[in-house]
């Protein structure tokens, strides 16, 4: 325990070794201004509303398996190993699941236990789900990160050097952190010294949590940079823009920072650190940035056109509530010139062709490519069949508005139903596959996204209560398939950021090692009234569109914590070193007290 204090963790510390770039010592000697700060972001839990678990029925040779999972294709194979049956005897089903956020990939021991219980009972179905306390104790968490950071800059605001000592824990497995990403996004900095120590504690292990590593990296980086800007007596936005050339995508971040500033009315509300207006309530603005990969995963899709015109699109993916189903239907319908209601999408069943697990924002790229390819292949077969009937070469046909017609010539056409009737009794069934490298070359998918969040908060300096007034998010993710559900992803990610910035924290008993708040009263999530206005701008441009489809789930969940923490520092004039920014911590920071 006491993982927030590196000097107390003793033998449980595993230093990861020092990484040095450039000449940090010389850079610090030459720096005109330096800034030092301490930052901490605690362990938070996934707190899925539907806990981990499954129904399973082991009946003779067959195991029917209904887990709550993000990983329908693979989870049965993993269960097969645990219960020692051939994987082809396990049939996995999963139509809907109630939240995973990265924690629902493996079958887990409770999956194997439920299967054994079913076998022992002579094949009765067994339902075994974790209760709330167990869910919050062992079913996954996001590692903490604690940091001591020193930065240096020239008087004009050019950052010249970064040095960080970080440590983290995710439980008994330790707490790794990809520190080579420091300073986050502003990563092309020449001089840096990076140290990290993984701390193992006797607690449940970490699991992937929406954008693993990134929210912590963003929080530490953006906090330290904003502190440096304050030391320089410089406007935070001007400071970020001044150093834009060392970001990984300077032009994109510049445009996004400017757009976000316009949306939050930076010029109107911004002030240098500390709101000097009278009264106890202080207002401030803050910035956070994000980046993510999001390359589509392996996926295979089978499309069947039936002689009556009905269409099946089948692949063993899953919809976590991000509208995977809808987007598969959109792509298929577009290829066939149909409406999405005319396409039946089958997912969440291992009788369908394999598709990757939904993690790391890889689903949309994977399933749209395999669906597109399968539908194009099937349509090609239909055109081959229709070509002699219509007297038009197959490559001279197109499918639009529920009809098959000669390209650009609606007078030579037949309805989709008439066209499919020509198939007689034989359905057309074709496969399509996403092969990553190939699809990137074809311009269908890509990786690497950017985004900016800005927060506007009010802090009551009498009570320490922080109110999130507004948050704006500017986010690119290549070609946006469905703007409405894409926006919803960003809204949700901003709200999650508010929870993490203001409320969420796993609290451990330092003596017994038990979680003290494994429930939903004291493990706080934001309610509908805790959230201010959120304004989302999907950064849709012809250049981004041309890059192809890129995943979106992770990146907008990254920058919000930093934005809120910076806004609070901007409002009250001091850094609250540790999130969540509870009244206790805010008041302690205001009175220069030191607390955990």
């Amino acid at each position, binding site marked *: 325990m006491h993982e927030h204090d590196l000097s107390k963790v003793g033998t449980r510390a595993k230093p990861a070794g020092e990484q040095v770039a450039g000449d940090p010592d010389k850079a610090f000697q030459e720096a005109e201004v330096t800034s030092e700060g301490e930052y901490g972001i605690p362990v938070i839990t996934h*707190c*899925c*509303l*539907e806990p981990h678990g499954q129904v399973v029925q082991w009946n003779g040779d067959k195991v029917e398996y209904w887990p709550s999972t993000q990983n329908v294709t693979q989870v049965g194979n993993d269960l097969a190993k645990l219960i020692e049956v051939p994987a082809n005897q396990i049939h996995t089903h999963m139509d*809907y*699941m*109630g*939240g995973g*956020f990265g924690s629902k990939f493996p079958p887990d021991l409770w999956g194997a236990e439920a299967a054994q219980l079913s076998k022992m009972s002579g094949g009765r179905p067994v339902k075994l789900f974790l*209760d*709330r306390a167990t869910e919050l104790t062992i079913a996954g968490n996001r590692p903490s990160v604690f940091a001591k950071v020193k930065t240096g800059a020239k008087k004009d605001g050019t950052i010249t050097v970064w040095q960080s000592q970080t440590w983290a824990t995710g439980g008994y497995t330790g707490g790794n952190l990809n520190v080579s990403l420091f300073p986050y996004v502003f990563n092309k900095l020449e001089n840096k010294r990076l140290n990290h120590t993984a701390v193992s504690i006797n607690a449940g292990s970490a699991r992937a949590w929406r954008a693993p590593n990134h929210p912590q990296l963003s929080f530490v980086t953006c906090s330290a940079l904003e502190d440096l800007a304050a030391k320089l007596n410089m406007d935070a936005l001007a400071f970020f823009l001044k150093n834009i050339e060392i970001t990984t995508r300077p032009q994109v971040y510049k445009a996004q920072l400017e757009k976000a500033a316009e949306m939050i009315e930076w010029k109107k509300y911004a002030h240098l650190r500390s709101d000097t207006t009278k009264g106890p309530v202080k207002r401030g603005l803050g910035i956070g940035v994000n980046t993510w990969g999001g390359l589509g995963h392996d996926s295979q899709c089978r499309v069947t056109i039936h002689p009556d015109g009905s269409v099946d699109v089948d692949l063993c993916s899953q919809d*976590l*509530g*991000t509208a995977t189903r809808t987007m598969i239907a959109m792509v298929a319908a577009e290829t066939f010139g149909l409406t999405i209601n005319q396409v039946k999408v089958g997912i969440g069943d291992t009788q369908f062709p394999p598709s990757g697990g939904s993690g790391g924002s890889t689903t949309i790229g994977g399933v749209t490519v395999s669906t597109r390819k399968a539908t194009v292949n099937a349509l090609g077969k239909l055109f081959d069949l229709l070509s002699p009937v219509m007297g038009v070469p197959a490559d001279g046909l197109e499918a639009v508005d529920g009809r098959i017609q000669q390209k650009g010539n609606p007078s030579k056409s037949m309805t989709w139903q008439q066209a499919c009737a020509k198939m007689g009794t034989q359905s057309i069934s074709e496969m399509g596959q996403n092969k990553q490298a190939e699809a990137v070359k074809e311009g269908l998918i890509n990786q690497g996204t950017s985004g900016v969040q800005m927060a506007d908060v009010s802090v009551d300096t009498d009570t320490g209560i922080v109110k999130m007034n507004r948050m704006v998010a500017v986010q690119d993710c290549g070609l946006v398939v469905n703007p*409405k*559900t894409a*926006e*919803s992803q960003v*809204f*949700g*990610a*901003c*709200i*999650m950021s508010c929870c993490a910035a203001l409320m969420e924290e796993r609290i451990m008993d330092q003596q017994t090692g038990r979680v003290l708040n494994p*429930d*939903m*009263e004291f493990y706080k*999530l*934001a*309610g*509908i*009234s805790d*959230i201010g206005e*959120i304004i989302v701008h999907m950064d849709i441009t012809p250049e981004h569109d041309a890059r192809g489809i890129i995943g979106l789930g992770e990146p907008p969940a990254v920058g919000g914590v930093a934005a809120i923490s910076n806004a609070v520092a901007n409002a009250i004039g001091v850094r609250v070193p540790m999130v969540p920014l509870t009244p206790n911590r805010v008041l302690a920071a205001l009175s220069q007290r030191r607390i955990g």
Partner: protein
Amino acid sequence: MSSTKDEIRKKRKSAFSRRGFLKGLGAGTGVLSTGVLAEQETDAAPATPVQGPGAVAITLDINGRPHKVNVEPRTTLCDTLRNHLDLTGAKRVCDRGTCGACTVIIGGKVMYSCTVLAIEAQGKKIQTIEGLAQPGKLHPVSQAFWDNDAQQCGYCTPGFVMAAKGFLDHHPNPTYEEVKKGLGGNLCRCGTYVGVRKAVLQAAKEMQGGRNA
């Protein structure tokens, strides 16, 4: 079956029981809860069937239809709906009246079904998410959730929809701020509040005049 029950009852009468112990405390201590008084009444009137500890037959009025079910008196309404009546819309999440995923409407009041015993809900009109839609037509609240993409994983959604319906029944013309306050009893993990706020305002508009009771 009934003979076994009778045997259990006889045994209980003869053995030292919690009820006997409570009676032994006497009626004049001044800190007696109404629960104890109720139990005394039950003992005094043997015509009223003893409730439990085994399953008891009860009838619940759910979505305008009587549902007969045998549950132990300790069974919550949430578990009764989900595990005995196959009405799985209400979700068991926090299981202690914090998150609202199990929200139903009982006698016109929005309630957490995880903190109501099934036996307490007898004789009251219970509305669950399953009873909202008319054949082929969504309830305006559900439709508004759909239109505004007010759900992601969907686990909080049935509770949110029922809370919104109950709220609008009492506040047919709410302001934006009233919506934020009125739905403070439901938690979402995916972060759908932006859509929910818009949905409730849309539903309020559409339910004006032709409101679904």
